[in-house]
């Protein structure tokens, strides 16, 4: 499917006449975006940032920005949120996850915003394990398993993560809308450009105050519930697509080994987390 994107002039967001049928929230409960049905498709609202009007009859997405929102940020929303939602309508499987390559295999880190997906991907990349994606991890069936499709060679990092990893700011431009900076791939932040077989998924669980990294195998049935919670789907009321989505995720839950990963949320502990993940991969996935 080819999607045409149109950028409209900035305008203050007015209340919508419909009630949202779905809503995504940040960890603190604030609304990240809400979903409305329209005559020809959908309107996805990111409060005070932008609306995206999706016209299914024209395969067209119109971006309606709020005032003073940067073009770069709008591009990030489109690439990381709207495009994955559209892709799932076409049967792709997209997870809220980052991905890196280790020893020729991919691993993914799944979790809500703020759980550390980008920081882990950046840390592993800095340690020599190239990243495949910052978010919106696409799984393509490959043999009896799945491959991770590379996306764009850019990481979006909070300034404190970036400063911790590099001791300086690489991009130099902090986007006030995103509170994240775009850090392009570079020799010390390598990007993996080829589809890579998926070895495992790590769910970044709610922190329990652990002092050492903990990695435990998740039962497949529990994994399915988490996959549902952390996958992209545009319309949960679209029963045929929801049915197909559920079936695809069940196949992933049966085929892919998944773990719960908890780790100290301190930057000075991050090197230990990276080492624990490396050990876990090298030692045949035993619990730590």
């Amino acid at each position: 499917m080819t999607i045409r994107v149109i950028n409209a002039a900035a305008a203050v967001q007015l209340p919508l006449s419909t009630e949202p049928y779905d809503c995504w929230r940040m960890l603190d409960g604030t609304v990240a975006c809400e979903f409305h049905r329209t005559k020809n498709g959908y309107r996805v609202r990111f409060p005070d940032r932008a609306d995206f009007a999706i016209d299914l009859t024209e395969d067209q997405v119109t971006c309606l920005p709020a005032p003073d929102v940067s073009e770069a940020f709008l591009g990030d929303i489109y690439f990381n949120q709207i495009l994955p939602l559209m892709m799932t309508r076409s049967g792709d499987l997209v997870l809220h996850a980052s991905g890196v390559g280790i020893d020729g295999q991919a691993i993914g880190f799944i979790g809500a915003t703020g759980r550390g997906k980008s920081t882990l991907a950046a840390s592993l990349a800095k340690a020599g394990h190239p990243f495949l994606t910052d978010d919106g991890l696409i799984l393509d069936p490959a043999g009896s398993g799945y491959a991770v499709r590379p996306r764009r060679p850019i990481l979006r990092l909070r300034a404190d993560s970036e400063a911790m990893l590099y001791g300086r700011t690489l991009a130099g431009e902090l986007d006030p809308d995103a509170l994240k900076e775009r850090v392009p791939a570079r020799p010390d932040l390598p990007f993996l450009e080829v589809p890579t077989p998926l070895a495992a998924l790590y769910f970044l669980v709610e922190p329990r105050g652990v002092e050492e990294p903990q990695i435990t195998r998740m039962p497949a049935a529990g994994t399915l519930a988490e996959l549902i919670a952390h996958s992209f789907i545009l319309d949960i009321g679209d029963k045929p697509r929801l049915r197909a989505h559920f079936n695809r995720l069940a196949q992933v839950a049966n085929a892919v080994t998944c773990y719960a990963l908890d780790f100290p949320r301190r930057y000075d502990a991050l090197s230990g987390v990276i080492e624990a993940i490396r050990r876990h991969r090298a030692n045949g996935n035993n619990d730590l």
Partner: protein
Amino acid sequence: MNLESRLQTSSDAVAREVGGETMLLDLASGTYFGLNEVGGAVWNALESGASLAEACDQIEAQFDVPRGQLEADVLALAEQLVSQGLATA
């Protein structure tokens, strides 16, 4: 509801076996449920049109479980499926 009842499973219910359990998704509400191995066998029997007694017969042949306990468990599960809208009596 009794053991002779034949439940009609909802067309909005999707069942998939995952890791030895059966996960049910209710497309109407977006809610999902987990059934253990025996519960999954009950669901499969109901989907094939079996009565609750016939479901018990099938399960008794597969699992080592006292008949009285099995019938009580199947009736209890059937009540839950109906109350959750996943089946009708």
